[in-house]
């Protein structure tokens, strides 16, 4: 009986994001049936795509037991650079999108340089670049609002076969990350590195290269997120993306990635992002006091991180080195 209960809690812990999402949908659905309408659900997915793409990148970083706090700043700076290129060089939006992605990758490479080559811990490096990247952007704009051309908004509100472009991009990135993680050597080596860095080195993996690539991808994903989000409103002000890194990290953790590395999936990141958005939107639907909403959201995120800690502790207990055989077997 006790064992069965333990199995059940293991099952819940291992699929905590699905369980959370189901709870949220059911709870808000009962409170406000309109919450479960097709339109509202579509809205949730669309809204979640903005942080979802960045969460996919962050999942890779977390998988190596690293962290990227500069996500919010990259969301701000990379589209800004793209916007300036579009304005001054007159390049079209798709080219601007590319510039944004490349800028994001470059910013990620700066993180990677400090982390891998100079061996500074990721937390410190990305905390510094978080201020650095934003500061640079504020210097570029003199802290004023930056207006994009009308084409940008048209791109943001466009759709493909009836599906809003942000969702299409979200789905594309998710599939790409999924294939990368599950069907390429690089992806499997990320898992290996996150599981046991020392063993990865002993097995002859190029650990530095893997770790660096992860930050570059995270930068590129954050840039895509930022670009798509800005395209919704067509302008950019100095505070854009500030604090977003925490939404993104929370989404990744909710999706099953762990601060301790070695676990996480593309599907999980998608789920985590949708979960956060559903929780946020549900609060609006049910008319919870505007000022209470961050508190409730904070509690949900705390629960998710707590589940991660419990899960990890269970796992390490299971894998603890024993010096004599357990009599059970």
């Amino acid at each position: 009986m006790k064992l069965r209960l333990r199995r059940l809690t293991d099952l819940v812990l291992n699929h905590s994001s699905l369980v959370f999402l189901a709870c949220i949908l059911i709870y808000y659905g009962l409170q406000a049936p309109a919450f479960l309408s097709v339109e509202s659900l579509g809205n949730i997915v669309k809204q979640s795509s903005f942080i979802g793409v960045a969460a996919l990148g962050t999942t890779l970083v977390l998988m190596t037991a690293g962290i990227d706090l500069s996500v919010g700043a990259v969301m701000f700076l990379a589209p800004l650079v793209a916007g300036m290129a579009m304005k001054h060089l007159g390049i079209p939006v798709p080219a601007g999108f590319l510039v944004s992605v490349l800028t994001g990758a470059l910013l990620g490479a700066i993180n990677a340089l400090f982390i891998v080559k100079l061996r500074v811990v990721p937390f410190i490096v990305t905390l510094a670049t978080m201020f650095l990247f934003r500061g640079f952007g504020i210097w570029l704009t003199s802290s004023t609002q930056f207006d994009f051309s009308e084409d940008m908004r048209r791109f943001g509100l466009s759709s493909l076969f009836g599906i809003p472009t942000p969702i299409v991009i979200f789905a594309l990135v998710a599939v790409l990350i999924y294939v990368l993680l599950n069907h390429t050597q690089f992806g499997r080596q990320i898992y290996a590195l996150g599981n046991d860095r020392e063993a990865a080195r002993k097995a002859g993996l190029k650990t530095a290269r893997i770790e660096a690539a992860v930050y570059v991808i995270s930068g590129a994903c954050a840039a895509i997120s930022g670009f798509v989000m800005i395209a919704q409103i067509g302008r950019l002000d100095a505070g854009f993306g500030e604090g977003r890194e925490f939404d993104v990290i929370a989404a990744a953790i909710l999706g099953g990635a762990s601060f301790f590395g070695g676990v996480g999936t593309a599907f999980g990141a998608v789920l985590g992002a949708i979960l956060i958005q559903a929780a946020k939107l549900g609060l609006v639907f049910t008319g919870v006091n505007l000022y209470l909403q961050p508190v409730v959201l904070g509690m949900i995120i705390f629960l998710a991180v707590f589940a991660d800690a419990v899960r990890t502790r269970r796992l390490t207990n299971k894998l603890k080195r024993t010096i004599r055989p357990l009599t059970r077997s």
Partner: protein
Amino acid sequence: MNELLAVKNLSKAWFGVPANSNLSFSIAQGTVTGIIGQNGAGKSTLMGMLGGTVLPSGGEMFWRGQPYQPRDAADAIKAGIGFIHQELNLFTNLSVAENLYIDGFPRRMGLIDWKAITQRTREILARLDLDFDPMIQVGRLSPGERQLVEIARALHNEASLLIFDEPTTSLTPRETERLFATIDGLKAEGRTIIYISHILSDVQRLADRVIVLRDGKLVEQGPADQFTIPLMIRSMIGRDMGGLFPARSNKPQPDPILVAQNLTQPGVVEDVSLTIHKGEIVGLFGLMGSGRTELARILFGLDPFQSGRISIEGKSPEQGPRARIEAGMAFVTEERRAEGLMMDASIAENLTLVQLDGFGAGRLGILDRWSMVERTEQSRTELSIKAANIQEQPAKALSGGNQQKVVIGKWQIGNPRLFILDEPTRGVDVGAKFEIYSLVDKIAAEGGGVLMISSELDELLGMADRIVVMNRGEVTGEIAREQFDRERILAMAFREVIA
């Protein structure tokens, strides 16, 4: 016989201290060579040199008659040497097949060719008579099965020499039997094996030849049937001592300080009972992985135990190390650098760390700096710490021996009645060792109890009133000073008497 590996005058010194000196031996293809020796005899260094992770400081190695100079682990793998380590190097979050191919997956159009790797993994597993699914996660396998996956990995790399380093430590008897059958099979295939183990009966069962290392030197080698177990033990030990230890200045008193009864924690210790009396130095001996340190951690409240009882001076302490410290216990850890000292803090700060409470002047809890200076200067004299200014100098400026004195000293300030010393003289030179031994003797002479854990049997023979021997988490014997017998103690540690 075909020579696969030859080693000539191979030496390695770490910062001038020899770990291996002038090793010469050769290994014929298709044979099993057992390598035995006490902890610190130089086995790991030798394996490191063969595996490319340790660079020799002298001598040569030959692989299939050609000079062999591996620069890193990849070179050794390429040559055909596979290691099966005691602590497994597998990725528990990946499948068996992925573990085999992690450094180079076969690919089709850039993507992993899953069909090919499951197919080939299944073939390799079949060769080892393993019937599990190539896609099963390694984390879900038992320790024994993981060991076999490591072998599969070596086979996948086409290793012709497989080196097993203490492979049976965490295996059940059944898993061990299975491993041995596999090793027999590998040998029949013409593969060559080096088998390192503390379990001498296993070495006897498997090996064709035996090599004995002691103090970094090769002291004996020959066909396995010439080596009886007592002979193996005798050639692993055997060093003169005398003048290395201070005379014990007191006899233990009859009243117990620490009584531990039937301590059990699954997978760690089994039914361990231990008593330490006032003024007594109890030596705890065991090989690496015998559970000595684990027992100490349980006694000190750092790790839990499932059943059994601990009482200190007749009272059972509450959980956790804080309560043990209050009950009068002190723990000097094995990892001086990592756990025992704050390297950048001053010597005085380190000395007062454990007993900061004792220096709180008045109710506000503001530290009384003057009494701290006074007390630490007193410790410095008592312990004869060799430093110019203990208030200013950081702990890292001290030699290993003096660092150890600081670690012991910081506990002494609280006047504990029971000391657990885990490897107190590791990495300490001979002169400082003597001072530490004198300190230990003084603690006992003042009525304190000491549990001294060491892998150096000699220092326990020199200092202890009684020696308790552990093997695989169990107490396998206990001997009083009058009956100290090196061979008997080693036999208990290697468990040949009990087995």
